[in-house]
């Protein structure tokens, strides 16, 4: 199955490579798989066709932040859960709120998170998110103490099945739940981009 690769052969190889790779693979990485140089368009077409070939299966080919990968569809999760009843632990609200501040307002310092949440941020929380590979230090703020600036990682996006930060759910409109309907229109000076 060497040199003059046709589309079907490329798809056949891509399928095996993607099914056996432990992480998502970028277009550049997938290109490296082939001895002959394949065009981006050709490769993308092969991937799109492969994705469509798997349309009706319980596994799907998706494009996330760090590339293409196969993953199970949510509908088979109950079956998988019966096999492995152990699930990753749910994070506490404190963790999720910290993550939300970092995700939506990055880059932020721990102090920024504390200002918004109104409570001190336990360092265990930051460590848990770092260990999960969801946040990382991207720099330091040039103020006294040079606090670390946190941002979310590609893996965060990838683990949440997203390609980019812009695919995060839009921030809830300020005060929708709190402000009586009539005053809502007055308050919303800035349209939320969603």
């Amino acid at each position, binding site marked *: 199955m060497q040199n003059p690769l046709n589309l079907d052969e490329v798809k056949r190889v891509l399928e095996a490579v993607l099914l056996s790779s*432990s992480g998502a693979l970028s277009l550049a990485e997938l290109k490296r798989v082939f001895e002959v140089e394949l065009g981006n368009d050709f490769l993308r077409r092969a991937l799109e066709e492969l994705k469509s070939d798997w349309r009706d299966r319980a596994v799907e080919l998706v494009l996330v932040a760090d590339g293409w990968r196969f993953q199970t569809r949510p509908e088979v999760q109950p079956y998988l859960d019966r096999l492995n009843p152990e699930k990753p632990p749910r994070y506490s*609200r404190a963790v999720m709120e910290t993550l939300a501040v970092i995700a939506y307002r990055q880059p932020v310092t721990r102090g920024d998170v504390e200002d918004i949440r109104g409570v001190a941020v336990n360092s265990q929380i930051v460590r848990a998110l770092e260990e999960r590979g969801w946040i990382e230090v991207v720099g330091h703020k040039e103020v006294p103490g040079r606090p670390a600036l946190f941002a979310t990682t590609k893996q965060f996006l990838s683990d949440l099945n997203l390609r980019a930060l812009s695919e995060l759910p839009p921030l809830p409109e300020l005060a929708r739940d709190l402000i009586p309907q009539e005053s809502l229109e007055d308050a919303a000076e800035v349209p939320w981009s969603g």
Partner: protein
Amino acid sequence: MSEVLDSAEAAEVEIRHLARVQGELWSELPNDLYIPPDALEVILEAFEGPLDLLLWLIRRNSLNILDINMSALTRQYIEYVEAMQHKRLELAAEYLVMAAMLIEIKSRMLLPRPEKAVEDEGLDPRAELVRRLLEYEQTKLAARGLGELPQAGRDFLTLSIHIPQLAAKRLPRVAPDDLLAAWGAILKRASMTKHHRIGRQELSVREHMSRILKHLREAGRGQFSDLFDPAQGRSSLVVSFLALLELVRERLVDIVQNEPFAPIYAQIAVAAEHAEPA
């Protein structure tokens, strides 16, 4: 780890659940709070901080967040904080800071305001509090939204099927120049430059020494003339002869001739009996 993991789902407990702590819908008591004593600890766990507690109080009391009744809010908030302190619950300092802030806002609102600034909402002592409450509410909802996104490992699995490692174990590759480098390293380490000089010529001699030894080992002994292959050319004959002489000199091969003009044999050297290992 209780800070990190969602233990007992306490974080998601709505106040309705809290009410059940004592089987009473105390959350519906609008103004005069009755706080079931055991509920306080749950409250501490259920609220993420003073902002969270304030938001709940505002909602429970149907206060307009943009026009907060500061005295009602402050009174209720302080009642909670005092109750918690009374029970000697470990109260985060932020709760006390917030109490002080509420009291300050309340007192500033009692002061007469300069008339022309009345319409300037920036001067409303509550403005900063409202901004923070709104921002926090937004964060809370955003966090909930993030938590509902499908998550790898929880709602779907990524794949990584087995790759059989049946391909032969990869062996180190060695290039001729690596040998040269290795030899160079030996020379550098020991000062043996003078003793182990080897050129191409000597190398061919050594190659023939190996060849002759192999031949004799297989054949046991061999006729002298069999050790040479005239087809290889004159220089090859010379080198083969040098190789044989070297083998004899190194006492690796014995040359035997039973009588003058009889065939000459070469054989693997036999050590003197006293040299044999036991």
